[in-house]
């Protein structure tokens, strides 16, 4: 067993954050749009070409992010030094309708006056399809050919002038992470031209219409691909792809099933140790207990007391145990901020080094059994950090069907970092290794059964995996720092209002006696169904507010409970509905029908599995 932090130190977490494997993306935000006047410049490019680095270099870090109207896809916005508006778009391979992101990229590009198309010298053959599509749309384009340093070291020669002539647009060779070539972008915009279209390409209206006509689309795409390949054959000299580089060897190594499984275990254990024990345990103990409960909360209560009499209902709502001013601040800054920051650093490193897509490949066939494909691995891993963050990241999945399955599985069966921290604290008392085995066995079985049922029930089938694996790279400290910081700040902006709302609801329920009434109403379920003492009803009700509150109660009761009772209670809490904040995010992302189904489904599953498990464990002597 590793160290055993007390459950009260632990956090539930909420986040709402765009996440995408390999692509650095400034995320979602609710702040105001930049002024929508004058010339609009839009960045477009494939995933993993360094588009965000170019965007940050052009606009500085003072970007705002807003959802494209009617969708949940984020469009970061910033300004050039001359105040022209610059919009970023999600990394896409083309402007089709294959995902919500592509639709948004297409709409944003159609609204643009000028396009900066970021491509990579390492994958020009792939990237040029989008470039040619932008040109075929009739948009004025400037191309930034990034990652020239890597291409040079791989002996990939690209005839820049010829490429520029053939495409009919300016091509700027660049190394975005060092800034090389980026100074040339803004001057080049003045001379931004419509390029040479694919021969016989239809007009824009026809091009847009054929996106809904697979047969015609295939024809036009085929011609465009043919045209692009002809350009490639003229401008790209010697490619020595036959000789694998060190990075390719590394990439291959992580695709070996044995190495993959060992690495995955190391990665998960490290995640558990770093985020679960050090950050959610030790660091949060300092920030929440010492700083927040020691200084900040008493200070706020003192201020409120000057205006509102203590012990009055209003005081409880404002500054009580779940107060809008106290619990929100204590929770957002004392608990969420350190956990989310730590988790984002960890995931950003995994993303930037190219590890996550390779895990996706290894898990593909397993995930197919539950109607998903390898891509779903990323939201699921994020689920171990925070359900809300993971729910938002299901946007990377290509079909609504997959998003439904993934978000349901994450909400119900994946324990978030708050729960993991609590589990660690209680499993020791429940019998250590055997308790973990029973617990994890039940959880994994539930996940597989639930996934299989959803896969059978929902119409349609899982989409095939088509995944571009970025090269393995050493992440740069600067990229990780910028990415983590932007994500954390944006997350806090989005999460804070939800938390204020949550604490308002709970403290009103407390003042009006509704909270006590619910706890009382749940008691029979805990006693007859789960064979648990009546008092554990509090645990479940509080768990909806903030899981570790409830589990802390369980922790103090643990001496009076048997191992089976502890495991039953922990299983039920884990499968139980996600906290108020994540339920809000599921509602926002997945709609009212789906979120209500998840909510009710999780109650049935949690109490059902709890009831089954406790009877099974009691009946089989070996298990208890």
């Amino acid at each position, binding site marked *: 067993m590793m160290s055993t932090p007390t459950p009260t130190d632990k956090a539930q977490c909420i986040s709402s954050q765009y996440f995408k494997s390999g692509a650095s993306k400034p995320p979602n935000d609710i702040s105001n749009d930049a002024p929508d006047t004058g010339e609009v410049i839009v960045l477009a490019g494939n995933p993993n070409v360094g588009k965000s680095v170019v965007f940050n270099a052009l606009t500085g870090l003072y970007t705002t992010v807003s959802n494209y109207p009617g969708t949940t896809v984020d469009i970061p916005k910033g300004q050039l030094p001359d105040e022209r508006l610059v919009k970023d778009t999600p990394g896409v391979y083309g402007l089709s309708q*294959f995902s919500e992101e592509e639709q948004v990229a297409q709409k944003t590009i159609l609204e643009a006056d000028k396009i900066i198309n970021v491509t990579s010298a390492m994958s020009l053959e792939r990237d040029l*399809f989008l470039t040619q599509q932008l040109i075929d749309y009739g948009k004025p384009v400037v191309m930034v050919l990034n990652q020239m340093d890597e291409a040079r070291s791989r002996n990939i020669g690209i005839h820049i002038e010829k490429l520029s002539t053939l495409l009919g647009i300016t091509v700027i060779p660049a190394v975005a992470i060092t800034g090389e070539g980026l100074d040339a972008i803004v001057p080049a915009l003045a001379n931004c031209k419509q390029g040479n279209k694919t021969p016989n390409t239809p007009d824009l209206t026809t091009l847009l219409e054929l996106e809904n006509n697979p047969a015609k689309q295939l024809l036009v795409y085929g011609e465009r691909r043919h045209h692009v390949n002809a350009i490639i054959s003229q401008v790209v000299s010697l490619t020595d792809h036959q000789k694998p580089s060190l990075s390719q060897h590394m990439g291959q190594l992580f695709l070996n099933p044995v190495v993959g499984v060992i690495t995955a275990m190391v990665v998960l254990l490290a995640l558990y140790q770093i985020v679960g024990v050090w950050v959610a345990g030790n660091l949060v103990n300092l920030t929440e207990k010492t700083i927040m409960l020691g200084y900040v909360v008493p200070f706020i209560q003192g201020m409120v007391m000057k205006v509102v009499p203590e012990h009055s209902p209003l005081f409880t709502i404002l500054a009580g145990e779940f107060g809008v001013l106290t619990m929100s601040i204590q929770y957002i800054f004392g608990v969420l901020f350190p956990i989310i920051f730590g988790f984002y650093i960890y995931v950003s490193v995994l993303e930037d080094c190219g590890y996550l897509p390779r895990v996706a490949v290894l898990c593909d066939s397993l995930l197919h059994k539950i109607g998903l494909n390898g891509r779903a691995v990323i939201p699921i891993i994020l689920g171990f950090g925070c359900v809300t963050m993971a729910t938002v990241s299901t946007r990377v999945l290509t079909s609504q069907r997959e998003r439904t399955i993934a978000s349901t599985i994450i909400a119900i069966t994946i324990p978030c970092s708050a729960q993991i921290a609590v589990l660690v604290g209680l499993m020791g008392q429940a019998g250590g290794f055997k308790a973990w085995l029973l617990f994890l066995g039940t959880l994994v079985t539930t996940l597989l059964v639930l996934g299989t049922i959803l896969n059978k029930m929902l119409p349609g089938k899982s989409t095939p995996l088509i995944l571009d694996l970025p090269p393995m790279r050493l992440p740069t400290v600067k990229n990780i720092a910028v990415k983590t910081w932007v994500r954390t700040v944006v997350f806090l902006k989005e999460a804070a209002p939800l938390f204020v709302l949550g604490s308002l609801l709970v403290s009103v329920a407390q003042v009006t006696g509704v909270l006590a009434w619910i706890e009382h109403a749940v008691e029979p379920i805990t006693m007859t169904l789960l064979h648990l003492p009546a008092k554990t009803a509090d645990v479940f009700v509080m768990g909806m507010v903030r899981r570790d509150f409830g589990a802390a109660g369980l922790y103090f009761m643990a001496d009076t409970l048997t191992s089976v009772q502890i495991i039953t209670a922990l299983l039920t809490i884990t499968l139980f509905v996600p906290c108020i904040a994540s339920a809000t995010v599921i509602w926002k992302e997945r709609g009212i029908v789906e979120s209500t189904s998840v909510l009710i489904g999780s109650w049935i599953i949690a109490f059902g599995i709890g009831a089954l498990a406790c009877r099974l464990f009691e009946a089989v002597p070996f298990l208890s």
Partner: protein
Amino acid sequence: MSKRDETVTPLANLKPGETATIVTIDTTEVQSQLIRLGLDTGKVVRCLTRIPSGPTVIMSGGMELALGKDLSRHIMVQRNAS
């Protein structure tokens, strides 16, 4: 031109290191997506790894691409003599 094995076989059957030319793609579902990425008939690809009962990873146009099990069974290729 290199000499070619006469038999046409699914991409999923390639062994790591083998090079092959795409002959047909027997699925219309994702064909446009594959073309965008540069996978079309006549394209020469090299097999990098095959995950047991899982995706096939190929090298194509300088990028590593993982294709799901079923998909790689529907892409027919002709082995190039190495």
